[in-house]
Structure formats: C-alpha cells, structure tokens
C-alpha cells in the first residue's frame, strides 16, 4: 500500500511537471529575440498584382467633379512618400507622388512618419477605395460617412485591416527632391482644378513675398456647434492685416497670449454677412435668439474674449504670400511643433523667400503645407 501510494504521488508529480512544461513554453517571461525587420513589398510580392500600374494622373482623371468615385477593378498606383507628420503640420494624411502627380491618401492614422518614410515606395490597391475632393483637393480615401452631417466626399481609411488590404509599404529610397514650380505652373494647376498636376506634390516655390495678410477662423467654444450656420460661435481674422500674429500658427498657450494681449479685441464675432460685434462683448449682448443664447449656458455673460481663453486650443493660421500676382497661402496647424515660431523679421519686411512643402488647392486657391520646420522649408534671400 505504502509503495503504491508513493508511486501514485510520484506519477502525479510528473504529470504536473509535464503540464507545466507544456504551459511554460509559449509564455514570455524573459528576453526573447527581437523581431525581424519589416520585409518591404515588391511588385512581385504584392498580393493580386497583375503587373500594371495606373498613374496618379490617370487615377485623378477618373474623377467627375462633385461626385465621389468608388474605384473598382484591379487598379494599382504606386508612388513615393513626400509628406511627413513628424512636425505635426500634416495630420492623419499621407502624400505620395509619381512622375505624373501627387495624391493625398487619407490613411486616418497618426504618426505615419514612423512607418512611411520619406522617399519610401508605397503601392495602393485602389479597388474599393473612393476618390473624392475636399474643396477641390484630390483625395483617396474610403466611402464617406453616412451621417446626416457629413460634408465630405471621402472618409479616412482609419481601419488598420482596410489599410493592410490596400496600402503596401515597399522599399525605402532617397527622399524625393522637390520640383521647383513657377507662377505659370501654379496657375495652370489652378485652372485644371482637381486634375491639376501639382496638387499633392512636394514643390519649391521661389521668390515669394509676404502678403501682409492672414486668414484664421476661431470657434470661441469649440464644444458648441461651429458650422457656417452658427456665426455666433465664429470669429474670423481675415479682412485685412495680420492682427498682431507674427507666428506661423498658435498653440493653445500662444492663442491665449494673443487673446489676452488685446490685439484681437476688434475681431468680430460672426461670419459672412452676420456680424455681431467685437469679442469684448458677451453672447448675452449679441444674441436675441433665446435657444442660441442658452446654448452658451453660464458662459452667456462672459465676454467672447473670456470664452476664447476658457476653451482655448491650438489653432491654425494661414499666412498669405505673393507669387507675382498669385496668392499662395501657407497654412500651419496650431498643433505643429513649429506653430509658435515667429516668422523671421526679414520675411515680414518683404524679403523674397523660397518655400518648400506640399502644394494643395483650397477653393480655387493654392495652399502650402510645410512638411518640415520653417528653418528647413523656408529660405530667405
């Protein structure tokens, strides 16, 4: 009996140890080998690729104005990455270009620069994606949201598994050199509208001169409705001058500093033909519609200036530059790392500058987005 029992327990112990061994193996409890580096796709390894690429120009050619196009069939494009969101001025979007043009891929992810390196080849399987325009700018994304308030022709791709099915990262390559363009080139693209060759491309424009004008739109309480139908929650700085703004944009801290400095005190609440009065007034002063006034709650008796400080956030600013007779806006995000960097005094004093960035179109006007810090992207003569 004694031997049998001991044998039984010994067997049980062995079984327990065996079960441990089985369990132990897959459990990571100590340093393992680091994973291998990502293996880039080539034309040979692209899933389902049949050997023909459509040029970006031809892809854009499929678009019919005002109507988003869902691309169908075995349509592939390829291009090199020309944008980076490292500085935060470009956000959730990736620009690629080939010899025929550039396009905005609405990937919908942040920090794309960590996986899409400047110059890297990217292959896009367009079947199922949607080609659309945002204020005239070509974009390749996903079908638009089916919400009642949707204003866009496309939406961000967002979902990683959809990105994985459509966007393939290829080999790294040297960063693309910007193309130097002239006023005529810009005008030609503006004339071509959506199909303009320059939109979405990395370009350098030389001999720009500061236009002494800015464009900025603020929403005093960004949590409240702020569409064009809500002029009571809009403040434009656009009519003339620069409103004391000497930075490329304004972070939250800088925004508060501008508001409190008084340089925007004469800015009017409202938009279009609806103008209520300067931001030193209160919603209670301006709004007769009880429901609209109520939406401000207890803030209704604060001045708009105070409301702007209370709900402050980073805000974009567009500075106008002149290329001959053509206006070029340089639009900078308030969340970019160089938002609060001051424009060089020589720029403000009218020195000619060369600027490199991604050229886009916005409502028939050319707009620049700096990819890199102004110290790199802007050369002063």
């Amino acid at each position, binding site marked *: *009996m*004694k031997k049998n*029992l*001991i044998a039984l*327990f010994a067997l*049980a112990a062995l079984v*327990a140890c065996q*079960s*441990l061994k089985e*369990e*132990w193996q*897959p*459990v*990571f*409890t100590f340093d*393992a080998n*680091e*994973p*291998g*580096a*990502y293996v880039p796709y080539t034309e040979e390894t692209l899933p389902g690729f049949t050997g023909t690429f459509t040029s970006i120009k031809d892809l854009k050619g499929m678009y019919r104005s005002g109507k988003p196009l869902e691309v169908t069939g075995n349509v592939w494009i390829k291009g090199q990455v020309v944008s980076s969101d*490292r500085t*935060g001025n470009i956000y959730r979007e990736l620009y690629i270009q080939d010899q025929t043009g550039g396009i905005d891929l609405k990937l919908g*992810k*942040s*920090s794309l620069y*960590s*996986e899409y390196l400047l110059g890297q080849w990217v292959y896009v399987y367009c079947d199922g994606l949607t080609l659309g325009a945002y204020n005239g700018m070509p974009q390749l994304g*996903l*079908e638009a*949201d*089916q*919400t009642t*308030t949707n204003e866009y022709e496309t*939406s961000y791709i*967002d*979902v*990683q*598994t*959809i990105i994985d099915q459509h966007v393939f990262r290829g080999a790294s390559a040297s960063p693309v050199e910007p193309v130097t363009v002239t006023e005529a080139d810009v005008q030609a693209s503006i004339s071509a509208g959506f199909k303009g060759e320059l939109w979405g491309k990395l370009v350098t424009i030389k001999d720009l001169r500061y236009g002494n004008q800015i464009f900025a739109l603020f929403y005093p309480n960004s*949590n*409240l*409705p702020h569409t064009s139908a809500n002029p009571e929650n809009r403040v434009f700085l656009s009519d003339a001058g620069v409103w004391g703004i000497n*930075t490329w944009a304004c*972070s*939250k*801290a*800088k925004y508060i500093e501008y508001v409190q400095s008084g340089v925007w005190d004469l800015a009017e609440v409202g938009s279009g033909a609806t103008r209520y009065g300067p931001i030193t007034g209160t919603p209670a002063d301006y709004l007769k519609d009880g429901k609209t006034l*109520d*939406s*401000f*709650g207890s803030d209704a008796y604060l001045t708009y200036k105070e409301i702007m400080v209370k709900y402050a956030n*980073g805000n974009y600013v567009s500075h106008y530059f002149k290329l001959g007779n053509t206006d070029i806006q340089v639009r900078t995000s308030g*969340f*970019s*790392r*160089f*938002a*609060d*960097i001051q424009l060089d005094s020589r720029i403000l004093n009218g020195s000619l500058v060369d600027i490199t960035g991604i050229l886009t179109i916005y409502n028939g006007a050319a707009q620049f987005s700096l990819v890199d810090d102004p110290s790199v992207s802007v050369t002063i003569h």
Partner: protein
Amino acid sequence: MIKRIILSFAALLGSVALFAQEPTGGVKGTVIDRNGRQPVEKARLVLMKGAAEIAEATSADDGTFLIPGLEDGMYTLVITAPDFLETQVQVTVNDGYVKNMFNLSLTAVQQVTELDDDAFAAFDLDDSGYNDNPTILFGSNDVFNNIAGYNFSAVRFNARGYASETQDVYLAGVKMNDAITGYSPFSLWSGLNEAMRSKETVNGVEVSDYGFGGYNGLTNIFGTASNVRKGLRGSLLTNSSLYRLRVMASYATGVMDNGWAFAANVSARLGGNDWIDGVYYRSFAYYLAADKVLNNANKLSFVFFGTPGQRGAQNASTQEVYDMMGDNMYNSNWGYQNGRVRNARVRKTHEPIAIFKYDFTPSDQFEASFTALYRFGKNGYTALDWYDAQDPRPDYYRNLPSYFMDVNPDMNRHNDLKWGWTKEVWTHAKDYPNLTHVDWDRLYNVNYNQEDGRSKYVQEERHVDQQDLNLALNFKARPTSRITLTGGINGRINRTEYFKTVADLLGGSYFMNIDNFAERDFAATPYKLQNDLDYYRIHGYAQKLSVGDKYGYDYYAQVRNIGGWLNGNFSFGNFSFSLGGRVGYESFWREGLVRKGLFPGLEENGSKVIVDGVTIEPTYDPDGSVTTSLGKSKTAGFLTYAGKLGLNYVIGGAMRVYANVGYFNEAPKFNQAFLSPRTRNTMIENLKPEKIFSADLNWQYSGNGINIRATGYYTTISDQSKVMSAYDDLQNAFSNFAISGIDERHMGVELGFKIPTYLVPNLSFQGVVALGEYVYTSNPRMTQTVDNSAEVVLSNAYLAYWKRTELLDGTVTQKHYVPSTPQTAVSLGLAYNYDYWFIDGDVEYFGRSYLDMSPLYRTDYAVAGLDNNITDEEIRYMTTQEQFAPAWLVNLSIGKSWYIDYKYQLGFSLNVKNLLNNRNVKTGGYEQTRMVDNTVSKERYYRFDSKYFYMAGTNYMLNLYFRF
C-alpha cells in the same frame, strides 16, 4: 514534552504566587483532530467560569495539556486551534481531583481549502486606482468567515461591503496595511502558506489581543518559527485559474531542548492558466525564521522572508470587445513577439521583510512583546509608454466597431464599411492576432525606423518602492481573574518612492525624458516639456534615457504614524464587557525629487526660476501658495482616535450573545490627499478625517458539533476622500478628480452555520447568508484639475447625482450602491467527513452587485450637456448605476489523506469551482471617466462604455501533500 513541563511549571508557579493555599483540582487531557485522531499541538485552552477567564494553557506537541490549581466547580473549557473549529466542553472539578478529559477532538474548519493568498493578491493589479481585493477574513475559526472566505473569494466578496483597506492585517503584532493606500498586502507573503498559516482573527468591531483594529476585523498572523507546524511538509499544487504549478516545502523544528526553534518555507509558483491568456506566474518565496527561548519569561524571534517574482496582469475591457471575442476573459495586455506570448503589464516585486520580536512572559498574568519590522525592496509594474506614436492598445476605442456605427444618429457615427471590417477583425480574432492583441513586432519596427534610434514605444516600469519601519509594543495583563487588559503603542516611518524607469527600449537606442501631454500645448516652450527641468538647465536639452533610467516623475511619499491603544475586558459571572480606546497622530507629505517644467516653483532661496535667460513666473495653488514640483509639500497632520465598547453574555456554556459598538476618527491616506502627486505638491483643500460609527449584535452557538453565528450590523462612514485620474476629452488633457465628502451606510445581517444532519452519520449541513445594503448617503464635492496647468477646471463642484438618481420632480429612481461586491450572497451545502475522506458540495447565489461609478457622470455639468439643459431622460442615462446580473455557482471539493506507519501522511484535495461553468459572472469593473462630446445636436454628452472583470468558468485546484 519540555514545553508541557515548562507550561505546567509556569502555571504552578503562578498559582503559588497567587494563592496562599493552593487548590489541588485541575483539568487535563489530549487535544486531537477528529478526523485523523492525531494530536493537535498548540491548541489554546481557555477555562471560563461564567464569562470570567480563569486560566489558559496550550497543548504540547503530543496534544496533552494540564490546567492545575482549580477550585471545585463547574467550568467551560474553550479550545481553539489554527485550522480547527472552536469547541467548548463543560468540566466539573470535584473533591480537589484533576479531571482527566481524555481525548478532546477538534473538527478542522475547512479541510478542503487550500486558499492561496494569490487569490487575493492577484486582484491588486490595476494601477489606475482600481482595487478589488476581497476582504473576507479567511482562515479564522469563525464559521461564517471560513465558509464565505473560501466560497466567496472568486466573486471578490467584501465582508459587509467594506473596502479592502478597512481590513486590518497584522504580522507578528505589527499592522501591515499599506502606509499609502491602506490596502491589505497579501502579496508580500503569498506562496508562504505554511509559514503564515497560524493566525488569529476577530470580526467587525471586536478588539484583538494584537491590535485595536477598526470596524472590519483584524487578522494577526503569528509568523514566527515556533508557530510553524513542526516537521517536514511538502506539496504540489496545480491550478487552472491562477498558475499551473506550485511547489512548496517547509520544515520546522518546533522548540528544541536547547530553546531554539527553526523554520523554513520555500515555494515556486509557475506558469499560466486555463482562462486568461497572458497571465502567468514566475514567483518564488522564501522564509527563514528562528526563535530562541531564553527562559520561561523571555523569547527572541527573528524572521526574514520575501516573495521575489513576476506575474502577468489582466486588464478590463468593454462588453463590446468581450462579445465579439466570444470570451469574457479576453485580456488586452498581451500580444505575440516572434510568435511568443508577451504581456505588457507585468508586476515585478521583491519586497523582503525582516522581523525582530521579543516576547516577555514573566507570569501567567502578564505578557508583552516588542516587534520591529522593516520592509524594503522594489515593487514594479510595467506598462507600455509611447511618444508621438499610435495608441498600441488593441481595444482602444477607435479600433472598435462602435466607433464607426451607432444606432443613435446624434452620435454621428455611421460608416458601414469600417464597421463591417472592424467587426470582422474582432469576430475572427484568430485570423487577426496582430490587431486583437498587442502587436509587439510592429512596435519594434516603428522603433527600428527611427534614424536616430529614438524609441517611439518603450516598456516602462512604474515603481512604488517602500522603506517601511514599524515598531510595536503590545501587552496583555490579567491583574485579577475578572479583568484582562490589552494594549500597546506603535510607530511607523514610511518613505515610499514613486518613480518610473525605462524597462525595455523595444529595439530603439534611447527615449527622451519629456512630457508628451505638455508638448501638445507648449511645443514652442521647451522648458515646459521637461520632466526634469534642472537637467535641462544644466545641459540645455532633455535627458536621453537608457534602460533602467528614471524618468517621468520621481517623488517620495513620506508617512509618519504614532499611536497607542488600551482595552479592558471585565467579567462578572456570565456577563462581560470590554471598553477600549485608541489615539494617534498621523502625518504625511510629498517630497518631489525633480523639478517639472510645468511647475518649476521657486529656487531654494525663494527667487524665481530662470531658464534660458527667461525668468519664469510661478503659478499658484488655490490656497495662494506657489505651485511646486520639487521639494517638500506642506505636511498634513491628523489626530486620530477611536473608542470601542463590547458586551458579552454567555448562556449555558455553548451559547453567547454579544454586541460591539465603535467610533473611529481616521486620517485620510496619502493617496487621497494630493491633486496630482505625479506632477506637483498641491494638496486637496479642506482635507478631513473620516468618521466611522459601527455597531453589531451577534448570537453564537458552538457545541455538540453545531456551529452557528448570526450577526446584525450597522455602520456609517463619513467624509471620505478619493482622487482619481483619467483623460478628459472635454479638456483634451489628463485630468485629476479630487472628491471629498463621500458618505456611506452599511447595514445588514450575516448568518453562518454548520450543523450535523443527524440523518447520515458524518454529514453536515453548512452555509452562510450575507444580506446587506451598502449605499452612498451624500452628494460629495469634486475639484477637477489637469496635469498641464495649475488652473482649476471644476472647483468644488457638487456631485448632484452621486447618492441617487433623482429626476427633476424629485422622484428617486435608484439609490446608488457601494460597488464591486455582492450585497446578497448565499452559500448552502453539505460536508461529509469519514475515514479521512471529505466531500463538500455547495450551491451559491450572488446578487445586487454594482459597478464602480465615475464622479464625472454624476455632475450637473455632464448631465446637462452642451445645451445646459437637464431632462429626466438625460438624468436617467447619465447617472443610473449598473447592477450586475445575479449568479448561481456550484462548487465541489473532495479529499483524502493516508497515514503510513502512523508517521507519515499523504493526502490530496481537489477543489472544483463553478461546476456550472458560468462564464457571465461580473466581479467588478468601472465606468470610464470619458464622454463623447462630438454629437450632431450639440445638446448632450454620452458615456464611454464601461469596462468589466469576469470570473473564470469551471476551474480546479489539485493539491498533493505529504507531511512527516
């Protein structure tokens, strides 16, 4: 034998001292285990005459005892021993003879239980302030606690609804509750079951011999060498819900002829489990102890133990995720690295404890002990950290179908394609392991892509490293046969360092010591981004971090306590009462070790800080003082006091009725006192001590194999404080919510019983019933701040819907309950014991558990929404507290032991829990303190989905042991 002689001799001497003419009567016998008929050593025998304690003895190694010097008369002998039910027998001493009781048998309290402290410690994993330790005082001799402690632990049952930190846990006479949080630190000795098995417990408001205690009982673990059961013991345990294997061995000499006693206990807990992927143990434990009995009056004890190891943690997810995964045990913390499972959140601890104890027992009428206990070492908890990179958590809300589709059009979410694909991913998780689990390979590759080697993702290790020195002096005196006095003084010096280090650069070369959140708002002001501004001032750039470097935050929590207590027990025949009090002073402060860029404060000499040639204007706290991150904060000090009264009436020897009442004034803890201790010294204004009133009334019967206890209790807790942190979407910033003035009321009844069926020999009917109502009774105030600024977002805001959901016309639709424990818990079962076999079967019911509430959702601000208009529908939606569905469980245990040559013992126990495989039992969770504000109507806010923890399905624990 030697001990028996010593005890007898001591008793004899004591008697000689007390009485001029010595009575010759007495009681003797042998205490044995009812099942094994083996002697029970160290059983405590208390002889009562009515309610008066006449004498006390301890059984020797062979179970024998002798209580001499008794006058003729009727006595009650109360026998207690660790792991056995208390037994009382009537004794009559006649004609001056020593009455021989022969064998007095004890029934093991829970032969089936091998409840590992890990079952408790494993819950204490979340670092977000969410703590879900069950608080039942298991392992005691109380019939309710024994059954509930084992059967209810899986659902995180909290006795009487009290929070974990209210349960006092002592080790060798020193209170071990965490100095910063108050939590019971079971993990410090988990895996040392044999060494820590010997313990003594009191319930509710009762006073223990070892400490004054609070209102939720007190457990004292003896922990010294002579309290470890003599002999060599070993066990193998395999378990399907915690870890795969536990190997444990212990050896204790008992007190040897030379006065020494030695004990050792080692164990290893290894492997994963059947239910939660990514959770594993790789934990070890060691314990070494020695006692030296110098003479009858003096004993020295030395103990050193620790539990080095690591264990993977579980995470809570939303029901949406669980449903799509088809698994309520889904754990988002882990993913594959090179095909191997890796958990991002791993608790890594090694906090050794050294104890020196001196026992002084000059007579039977007086005993005293002095204990010095020192805890040190490290306590780390890893997590992913990232800078300027995508959120790596697989169940991040933007990765879920609900982010792309909601039937409520006001949520403005409708994209069929994205909804469909995210749904596809989560419902076919095995095909998308990189999307439904942490994608380690991707994290490494992102880091590989950084030309300068700067890691975007790292694994950080958050440290809470304590240096904790405790001193305690306790005594017990019986100046007369009617009076027993207990008391003590204690002191504590605790310095806990909070900091984090880089644990793994994940393929990169370095990480930067800057504040991600600050960079968003102050990108152009480099000094504000600095986690260590002084480093930046010296070097002109932020520190480049390597593995092991501290970063982020670094501060001391300094805590000092001193106190004393005294309790007197007075007996008059069958009636006795106790009266006691405690007074103390507790203080704490924060001491910042780095100067943070956002809150540089002033220089040591009081001048303003200058960075890059610019003078930095300081910011100010609400009380007008300069906001600082470096150096000492103000010191918060509190006089604490408490009083207890206990009444006890014995009826016929086996029955007693007793009642307790207590009032307590408790200092708030460090973790309840600072608005944002990671970033600054700012303390909550008007910090108040908690006030607790608690009373209970009990009826107990213990005799003839019957054990019953019935209790009614009533407790109010006032002026509690709480600080929690969460990302606030409305502020676009990491926010801190400081709540003060939380009041609770706990009342209910408890019943525990074990009764022979009388129908079948050796078959008992056993059960517990816990019916309570634990509710909030106040609407507290809340102050909200953000990490990025000294600005107060919400100042003393009224949480109008904290204690109940009340509509505009005053109709109350719901009271709000203290969360995370069933307020109805019932267990009924049968226990069979025969010939070393035992079989226990229980059916359990749990109901009226509630989810932990977010304070943000109980503000007018959140209910009103953007239009500042409150409707009944909005009140219901935003403020109603979720009640968990009730649950039925069935547990079964079986065991057998064999004695070989009357010398060795082999045995096994198999416990199978949740036989019905009920996988839908929520054991806890919390509301996310986040709101959806991007709506169409801009009229209201919506809640983020809540997160939950679930109980495992059918699980087993098989324990094989040998003893000799």
